[in-house]
């Protein structure tokens, strides 16, 4: 992966000027490269990674992983049904997977009822959907490579040879 992408993927706040220093390139070139990545969709967007457990007081929500079995359609396979599903704003992620079911759909809602309602009224009744199995998420330990528990700071000496 390009250095620029790796740096930004780890911390999107690093400025082009700083990236230029880290990679010993010109800031103008870095800006140009970033613009190109933004334009061609390599960089989709910049956002903060939140520990949503900590935002509970502000807005509670629940998350569920839903296994969905669907009937593939001629020519388009799973894509049409998948599109109908992922277009709902409640769906935060949607993956086609191998194995006992076809789509893994991640849904978020304000509470258990909104999610259940979504599954009952929107998802399971959709044409092409044969069966769903919903797992409510109880606790998050690690997400996107990030361990969510705040680890105690290490006991490294502040100064040593």
């Amino acid at each position, binding site marked *: 992966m390009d250095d620029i992408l790796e*740096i930004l993927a780890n*911390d999107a706040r690093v400025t082009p000027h700083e990236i230029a220093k*880290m990679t010993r390139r010109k800031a103008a070139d870095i800006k140009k490269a970033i613009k190109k990545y933004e334009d061609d969709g390599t960089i989709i967007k910049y956002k903060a990674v939140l520990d949503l457990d900590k935002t509970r007081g502000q807005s509670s929500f629940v998350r569920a992983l839903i296994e969905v079995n669907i009937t593939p359609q001629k020519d388009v396979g799973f894509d049409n049904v998948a599109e109908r599903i992922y277009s709902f704003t409640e769906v935060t992620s949607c993956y086609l997977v191998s194995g006992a079911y076809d789509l893994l759909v991640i849904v978020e809602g304000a509470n258990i009822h909104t999610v259940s309602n979504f599954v009952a009224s929107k998802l399971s009744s959709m044409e092409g959907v044969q069966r769903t199995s919903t797992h409510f998420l109880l606790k998050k330990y690690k997400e996107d490579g990030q361990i969510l528990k705040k680890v105690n700071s290490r006991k490294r000496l*502040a100064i*040593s*040879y």
Partner: protein
Amino acid sequence: MKIAKRVEQLAPSGIRAFFDLVLGMKDVISLGVGEPDFITPWQIREKAISSLEKGYTSYTSNKGMPELRREINTFLGQRYGLSYDYNEEILITVGVSEGLDLAFRAILNPGDKVLIHDPCYVSYAPVVTLAGGEAVMIKTDLSTGFKLTPKVIEAYCTKGVKALMINYPCNPTGTSYTKKELQAIAQIVHKHDLIVISDEVYDELTYDFDHTPFASLKGMKERTIYLNGFSKAYAMTGFRLGWAAGPAEIIAGMTKIHQYTMLCASITAQMAALEALKTGFKDIAIMKREYHRRRNYIVGALNDLGLPCHMPQGAFYVFPSIKKTGMKSMDFAKGLLQSQKVALVPGSAFGENLDDFIRISYASSYDNLKEAIARIKEYLKENRHGKKTKR
């Protein structure tokens, strides 16, 4: 009660008081740390834990576990095309520090001289002295990026010089050598029939070219004591594990001392090291990329601040000059600590003649480095006014 003369005569560490000052202060941003800021990769820690669970708590062979010696040899073969007899030519030590002590004690007769580049890691000269030898320091400076050159080494090759101590990438300067530069040094080594003690513990952290072990140079394996360890590459400083590879005769001598003084390295650390060699390469790559970027950033930032700094080729240290500030390195470090809560190591810790320098370790998060640079900038501003009145 009197302590031994040779101990009494070791240079007292004036730096100790400063270190205590740093350790007693809270919320300090530290650029003074000589170890990685990464934690030992989990699979290595997990291996250590599970070895304890399985009851591996005994002594090992004096030389270290045969499996570990064999794995080190395999690694050296794959990585550098080097091949040792792992039964006779490799010894597992308690860190490179023990390896150094053993090496000097094994080869030095009273009064034998050892050439050492200056600046260098703090233990080299004292360990030579304790082994009954005489440390001869070869001064290097910013103009050559603190590199030893064949010409300079040769000028020091007088009667009684038995060995050359070299450390690359170097703590505190980050200086390293290309294969070509090392070959030129090797010629002098050969000409003057020297033994080379090569501390290459930072070898995996070489950024601008491939690292070349001194022992891999033509004709050098039979006269090199090759020291390395797990501390820096695998972030395993606390495990205290290193190794020495060299001619069977010397390794046998070192093993004799080791078996009477240390017996063997910790079995837990050896188990962990075995895992590190097998699976640690991915983690090294990630750490190295990160350090590489930080190095570029910090060197650029320090030069922008007007503190001239050469581009070090390896390790995680930069060694900028503070001559312009007109301050002595200890005063600079103390002032910076007190006014801005940034800790670093004054150059004087590495020798009296290095008072115009400071050692900055970039084994600290990027956010910390950025904040530290901002604080150093502030500190330099404060002192620009003070300087005129002082001098």
